[in-house]
């Protein structure tokens, strides 16, 4: 109640943001503090370099891709709203939410999370993960540790397994099908302690 009001009032359209993403006021405040901490020059926007300053992220093999997910094509900065919207994908799913077909899919549902993961593979956003795109991700995750042939054979095998309509690419439906047994909510969620 009282403790978060002053910070919340600093954020424009915060009600809308909470409605859209489902974060509680306390979470929004914590994320805002984090946003400000990352925005060292106090411009109100984050640039890729600000993300790059996070050491654990720089250490992550696909760190660049994750940073890229925050920036829409053509945009060079991220404001607080976009920052929160992307992070909302990783909010744990609301178990009690009734399935209302008329309402838009919540941002942290299983489908939305899978879509987000799909987009991280599918960089050119054509709706399919091509062999080249898959190879790119594999290369980032494995770099010097395996040979090019091994990478290619892994990519081939993966596409073979998942590709049901034999078009040599993985569509979103095929992606979803191949991961239907994975507990997405558990593995793609970040739980706040408070």
């Amino acid at each position, binding site marked *: 109640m009282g403790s978060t009001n002053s910070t919340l009032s600093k954020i424009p359209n915060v009600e809308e943001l909470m409605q859209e993403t489902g974060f509680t006021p306390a979470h929004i405040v914590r994320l805002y503090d984090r946003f400000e901490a990352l925005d*060292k020059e106090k411009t109100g926007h984050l640039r890729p370099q600000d993300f790059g300053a996070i050491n654990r992220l720089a250490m992550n093999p696909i760190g660049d891709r994750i940073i890229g997910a925050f920036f829409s094509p053509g945009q060079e900065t991220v404001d607080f709203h976009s920052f929160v919207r992307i992070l909302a994908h*990783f909010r744990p799913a609301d178990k009690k939410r009734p399935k209302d077909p008329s309402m838009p899919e919540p941002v942290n549902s299983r489908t939305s999370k899978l879509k987000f993961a799909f987009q991280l*593979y599918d960089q050119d956003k054509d709706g399919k993960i091509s062999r080249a795109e898959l190879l790119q991700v594999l290369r980032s*995750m*494995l770099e010097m540790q395996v040979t090019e042939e091994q990478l290619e054979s892994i990519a081939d095998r993966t596409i073979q397994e998942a590709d049901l309509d034999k078009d040599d690419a993985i569509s979103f439906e095929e992606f979803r099908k191949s991961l239907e*047994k994975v507990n997405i909510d558990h593995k793609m969620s970040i739980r706040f302690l408070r």
Partner: protein
Amino acid sequence: MQGQKGQVNAMLLLGVYFTLYIQSFSYIPHSTGFSIIFNVLYLKISDYATNSVIYLCCSSLLFPGLIQREGGSMEQEMGELRRYRTQSISRGEFALSDSFYFYRKGLESIVDDQVTQRFSSEELVSWNLLTRTNHNFHYISLRLTVIWGLGVIIRYCVLFPLRITLAIIGISWLVIGTTLVGFLPNRRVKNWLSELVHLMCYRICARGLSATIQYHNKNNKPQKGGICVANHTSPIDIVILANDGCYAMVGQSHSGLMGVIQRSMVRSCPHVWFERSEMRDRHAVTSRLRAHVAAKRNLPILIFPEGTCINNTSVMMFKKGSFEIGGTIYPVAIKYDPRFGDAFWNSAKYNMVSYLLRMMTSWAIVVNVWYLPPMTRQEGEDATKFANRVKSAIAHQGGLLDMAWDGSLKRDKVKEEFKEHQQKMYSSMVVGKKARNSQEPHTESSKS
């Protein structure tokens, strides 16, 4: 509720008045016993007062971490992710879900990470009436604001001028005294006098900061010809340590006021000041320090191996240079009490002058200093391992977290090696051992 609040606010006021008394008493030299009793009393009362008022009123920021983290290793997590697959993992394959592990880790670090945390001030459980430590500032009640206002007046108008005067006296006496002593011929008298001058100046400076220091295990105090290493939180560390003994300082020679102080200090007893160009040549630095240590009559050198200021909740990686010099290492752990004032120097946020001003307008600086038993490098132990051993001892004694991260990460980016390490770990899960992979028949069409 009202009555309780009133009672507690009265306690707060009492606590504030007590600080005043303690401040005045601490200006009496050599009355350390007296001031300790008052300090303990003050601690107890203000602790109770602030805890009850603030805890009742605001929800403070308690948690050191923001999010729940899975404790599992990369292998464990990947294994869980792949459990759905019908083939066994031992074939070592790639699964589309593998990347989820990295996504999550990446996003977790965006929301909260351990390293960036260390370079900003520690958050307190209850507010100590200093706006600078209140990260979640909001208006609670008129009474609290009035008390806070009173606190501001006391700190800025009463305590601050007293402290500034003392600081000026201390520094000028340091310069004058050491220069005077420098004129004496090299004899035991000179050394004794120089020690006296140094001690007196540092004690005055410590009063100027209202520092209450408690030394533990004085029998382990650094001896002549040794090297003293300590964890670094702020430039005040030097004043804190020098209050109890004389050290030879090591550092860069500056110009301006610092340069004047440095040059006059060297006149009375040898310190080791390096030119900026010399600092880059590690070999030259090491040999000069070695020469200093070898002369057994020289004062112990004071070194801060972290290389930069950390926020006093953890100890970061020790640079191995100081541990290659040889000689006996005397570790010292310094822990500031954050309730009375935040001693951490965030050099990115504040420059030296504004930092000192903040120090002089806090309530007090309460420090615990532990002298640890001396350590020497053992047979077959390299400098890095030795540095880590000393670091663990200091962290353990001071109740700080022992972290392997490098303090220079404040400014520099993480090295490529860390990323490669992650890649290596992952590749062992995908490709498996080399033998396994070569056995698999390549029946599918190979690269186009």
